[in-house]
């Protein structure tokens, strides 16, 4: 086993992990604001990638214009989803909501299949495909984009939740929606807002990975599950813990595929998920229920 090889496993794992982290944060934002696990999160990842394709190919927009348009379009989809599927519910028990998000994800996937077809599509990289060497390992410029954008988003999240009124209000809703309502916070608006933020984040994740992984109507399932896994490792925090969770997952997958057997790559992720749910449901770093943010 050479050092070069290990370094490559680590680097590959980190760049995949960053994607998981970004999707995972989307899960935890909605969970923290509403107590729902939004299983349609993966579909927004898919929508981001496919909308970018549409804006690039059909409307012939340049990349820098297509990306914001695609994020806006997916966010709109998230908003409509909350309005039509989540809000009208008479008795919003968690189990009802979870089932609705699963149903919603199937619907979104079906519509995407009708609209974009079943083919896989590729999107050009943001800045070329020439590999960059780091020691004996190589990464692509797109990986740097992924790592950079993930960091920016995590920082922006942190700022929003701790230093803005609206972010603090959303945290208040997560601790106790009734009390938050009593002090004048519009809880329903906060729920809507959480869907908007997380669908936008999912879309960003979908767009920045599409040049590497390609995109199709059904990419959301696996990416969504991996993101969920990252969020569980991070104890459903919308901050750095989920990012670390995603990175751990990515690196373990990559090391598992390289050192043990590539057949077990997905098994590794789901074994971690199950173990954590059994042994440490509060996440790897969580201590008490009330510290979850």
């Amino acid at each position: 086993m050479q050092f070069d090889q290990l370094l490559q496993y680590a680097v590959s794992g980190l760049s995949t992990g960053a994607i998981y982290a970004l999707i995972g944060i989307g899960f935890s934002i909605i969970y923290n604001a509403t107590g729902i696990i939004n299983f349609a999160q993966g579909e927004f990842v898919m929508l981001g990638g496919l909308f970018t394709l549409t804006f690039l190919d059909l409307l012939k927009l340049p990349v820098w214009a297509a990306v914001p348009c695609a994020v806006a379009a997916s966010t709109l989809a998230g908003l409509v989803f909350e309005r039509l599927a989540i809000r009208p519910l008479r008795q919003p028990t968690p189990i009802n909501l979870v089932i609705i998000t699963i149903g919603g994800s199937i619907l979104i996937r079906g519509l995407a299949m009708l609209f974009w077809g079943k083919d896989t599509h590729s999107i050009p990289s943001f800045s070329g495909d020439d590999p960059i060497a780091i020691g004996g390992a190589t990464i692509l410029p797109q990986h740097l984009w992924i790592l950079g954008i993930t960091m920016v988003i995590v920082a922006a999240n942190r700022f929003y939740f701790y230093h803005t009124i609206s972010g603090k209000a959303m945290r208040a809703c997560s601790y106790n929606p009734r009390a938050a309502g009593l002090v004048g916070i519009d809880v329903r608006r906060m729920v809507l807002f959480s869907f908007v933020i997380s669908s936008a984040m999912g879309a960003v994740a979908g767009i920045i990975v599409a040049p590497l992984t390609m995109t199709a109507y059904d990419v959301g399932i696996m990416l969504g599950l991996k993101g969920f896994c990252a969020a569980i490792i991070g104890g459903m925090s919308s901050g750095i813990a989920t990012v670390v969770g995603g990175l751990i997952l990515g690196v373990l997958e990559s090391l598992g595929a390289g050192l043990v057997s590539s057949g077990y790559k997905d098994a590794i992720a789901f074994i971690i998920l199950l173990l954590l749910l059994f042994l440490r449901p509060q996440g790897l770093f969580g201590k008490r229920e009330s510290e979850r943010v």
Partner: protein
Amino acid sequence: MYVRLAALVAACVTTILASTVFAAAPIKIGGLFAVTGPAAFLGEPERNTAKMVIDEINKAGGVKGRKLELVAYDTAGDATKAVQLATKLIKDDKVVAIVGPSTTGESMAVIPIVEKEQIPLVALAAGSKITDPVKKWVFKTAQNDALAVGRIYEQLQKQKLAKVAILTVSDGFGSSGREQLKAQAAKYGITLVSDDTYGPKDTDMTAQLTKIRGSQAQALIVWGTNPGPAVIAKNARQLGLKLPLYMSHGVSSKKFIELAGDAAEGIRIPSGKVIVADLLPASDPQRKSLMAFVKDYQNHHKAEGDHFGGHAWDAVMLVKGAVERGAETPAAIRDQLEKTKGFSGIGGTFTYSSQDHAGLGKDAFVLVEIKNKDWVIVK
């Protein structure tokens, strides 16, 4: 009494009338295609082609004065549905032969029915188990994986590359390819130094490729269908992997070049001859059929004819050939199908016999290389 007699006479007359009508009626061929569902990429071009070919045959006056009629159903890639529809074709529509189904799973499910009802079936799926062991009423047109593996190994042997790494997708297509790759290696003096897999939905295969880079391999064979191999091509380029890269016929379409972009350059693929029809030498026995099919499909569907459509083209033409040689009943069609010799179609040159209902040889595949986003035949 008289009433009964009258009824009997009436019945006789109708039967006679019906049978005279029947004699002039078209010959009914059943079609089972997975037009929707996960295998729609197979079923759709197959149905389109079968319809197109039968229309052309009828326009040219039919076969020996009789028209052909296609009764086509959509199985949605579902084996249970395929079985029901096969029964319907046989019992209700009274077809004399069936073309399809599109996938190996469906074909295996339908086989017991056609064997029992004694209706010839020309399957369009690739799985070698469809005709191995030989079943009396079952034929197929798609090339076996084994032939594609043989074509790659032949080339590796010629270039004296004996240490090979394989990376296969963990689904039906990949595991069948993996079996063949392992089974045939010794025959060509090849050792598999690394045997890895990836999931059909995986998005990063650098870990497997890094492992392969660290092994003794002199060439890498990737077995899968889009998009996995395109991701692997990109990953290999990222890692600067210098090994000659071979892929399966599962990606021998323009779609792969489109997905993999620059990373596709130099990759070699065993492929049916459809995609390189215009590059074939004039002496190639399949050239005439290929050019006719590609041009026809272009005219009708504004898209390039592909391998899958080609399987249906072959199946319909094989049945037509049997009818031309005088067969009209299912049993006679079966016997004539088995006597098919040197029929140059789209998938290859078919010669069926009582021991071989797949009918193709290694010449069904050519080795192509991707150069400047297009195919070149490797000599």
